[in-house]
């Protein structure tokens, strides 16, 4: 499935690290679209390949990593086919990125103003002075108090939230069409997280850009995204619009994830949480069949032996699970309703 007005289409992306211990398939079959002006959330547990996916899009994978398969279509052009010089023109101008750690993502020896201004100098060929003037405008835009003074501040002189705002200012300086935000709020407190998320949403509307928001927090996804891709062990296992995903999750992993989440808005009355048994497979010892099979309460022989593909379920949702196919050899199941029961009988 390809959404018509999608700004970027990632198809079966594969990125591996060739380490001493062999190939690490960090990203191995990632497919999604980001519709123009909308927010796509990518969720998944640690190590599922979220960051590597985003770096692959930016073509910033460093050796020993390499993108070895798939395609990334941005504005109708394949990014993987671009030269380094062409990519440089796109980075920071058409696609920008914010990283997880605001502490370490800013260069400690340059002022915040310089670092924002650099984007203008690189892409718009402005003089330092003009660039700084525009940088000031950006600081105002991201809501940093007394922006004039902050322009000359070094990163260490700012609080975490301010730094993340500065990062956003850098990323948005050239009004990109796509903003990739890799866990932009994980390192921040909830009250600050709320500020930053609101800021990103606001700017998105203002600038009309698409956002690829990477997170492991389902709450953040629910509150800020229009579409969601769920990743597990390097693969997208489910893709849906946000309401569908939370109301009617299809993949057993998605279901398990939602069920194991302790929630502050619901009292469990002392009940135990549902859990997903076992643990995430290590990327250099991936199971043969469905990657989730060893942990899946519904897994059958088929699941253990053969890898399902990501299929359209309807016109907008996709899932990578045998249950929703004709080949399904197990009993009829409703994943969401039967999950808890299946989970406890299993063991």
């Amino acid at each position: 499935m390809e959404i018509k007005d999608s700004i970027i289409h990632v198809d079966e992306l594969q990125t591996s690290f060739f380490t001493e211990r062999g190939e690490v398939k960090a990203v191995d079959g990632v497919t999604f679209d980001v519709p123009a002006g909308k927010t796509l959330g990518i969720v998944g547990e640690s190590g599922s390949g979220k960051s590597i996916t985003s770096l692959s899009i930016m073509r910033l994978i460093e050796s020993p990593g390499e993108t070895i398969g798939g395609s990334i279509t941005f504005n109708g052009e394949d990014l993987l086919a671009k030269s380094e010089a062409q990519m440089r023109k796109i980075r920071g101008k058409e696609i920008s990125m914010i990283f997880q750690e605001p502490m370490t993502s800013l260069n400690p020896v340059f002022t915040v103003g310089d670092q924002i201004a650099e984007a203008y100098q690189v892409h718009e060929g402005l003089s330092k002075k003009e660039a700084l003037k525009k940088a000031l405008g950006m600081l105002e835009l991201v809501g940093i108090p007394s922006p004039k003074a902050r322009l000359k501040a070094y990163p260490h002189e700012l609080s975490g939230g301010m730094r993340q705002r500065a990062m956003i200012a850098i990323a948005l300086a050239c009004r990109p069409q796509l903003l990739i935000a890799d866990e932009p709020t994980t390192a921040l407190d909830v009250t600050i997280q709320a500020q930053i998320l609101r800021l990103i949403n606001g700017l998105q509307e203002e600038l009309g850009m698409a956002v690829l928001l990477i997170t492991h927090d389902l709450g953040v996804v629910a509150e800020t995204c229009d579409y969601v891709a769920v990743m597990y062990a390097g693969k997208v296992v489910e893709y849906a619009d946000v309401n569908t995903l939370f109301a009617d999750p299809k993949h057993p992993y998605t279901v398990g994830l939602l069920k194991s989440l302790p929630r502050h808005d619901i009292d469990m009355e002392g009940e135990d949480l549902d859990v997903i048994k076992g643990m995430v497979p290590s990327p250099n010892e991936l199971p043969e069949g469905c990657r989730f099979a060893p942990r899946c309460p519904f897994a059958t022989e088929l699941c253990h032996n053969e890898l399902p593909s990501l299929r359209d379920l309807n016109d907008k949702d996709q899932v990578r699970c045998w249950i929703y196919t004709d080949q399904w050899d197990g009993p009829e199941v409703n994943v969401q309703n039967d999950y808890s029961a299946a989970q406890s009988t299993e063991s």
Partner: protein
Amino acid sequence: MEETTLPAQQEQQKRVNPQIENLKMVWRKLKKNKLAMAGGFLIIFFVLTSFIGPLLTNDELLNPNVSDRLQAPSGEYWFGTDHHGRDIFTRIIHGMSITLYIGFFSVVIGLIVGVFLGLVSGYYGRLTDTIIMRFMDVLLAFPGILLALGIIAALGNGINNVIIAIAIFSVPVFARIVRGSVLSVRKLEYIDAMRALGASDARIIFKHILPNIMSPIIVQATLFLATAILTATGLSFLGLGAQPPTPEWGALLAAGRNYIFEYPHIAFFPGISIVLVVLAFNLFGDGVRDALDPKLKS
């Protein structure tokens, strides 16, 4: 209970000791580093030679033989003879153990004292730390070789005093490194866990901190061995250290320098021997550092 079920591959994993595992990893990385391996082999070669070599050589050649003085290298005298007609090759072989001995023991002594001070300083902090570190500053403020000179002047000449002198100026180097490592390990939660269990300070320091800061210590020790050997030869060059006719290499070099015009081989062979030994330790220490440094992976 679902928690007890474990993935099959976990069960099959072999029992491996992390030290050994770690060593294996380091070894794998080292093996790929040709330079470090070359250094390692050289070290082994030198150490073996220092033990076996003297047994194989003709000790007669160590005695002065004025009629054969200042001979150029030849089939009989591989590296030629010196100004007393002694065979330089034989002398170098016999001197190897002395050079290694000085390097090794000065590092060991400096290491023991420095590590102890560093541990105490880093673990207890506050006034203890201040006092120890100020003292280290004082030692560091002394130009190394001048400190050694002064110490030897005070203690008298001789290899063991050279070792003490070199050890003293290595103490602050080790102490500082250890202190830094202790400070970072100390912050780790398992140290607090041991305190919460009521473990004594000694147990925490020696059982839980020390083993976890060995890497930088080992690296520093290897590299300092190179420095120690160089310093010892430097002192010998100034006429301090080994007593004649001990064939300490620095002393050979110092004596050889007087003949460098007409008989350059006398200074050349000891000089190149020193370079090789020091280079071996530097190469190896460097390789070990790279292999142990998680930041420089791949």
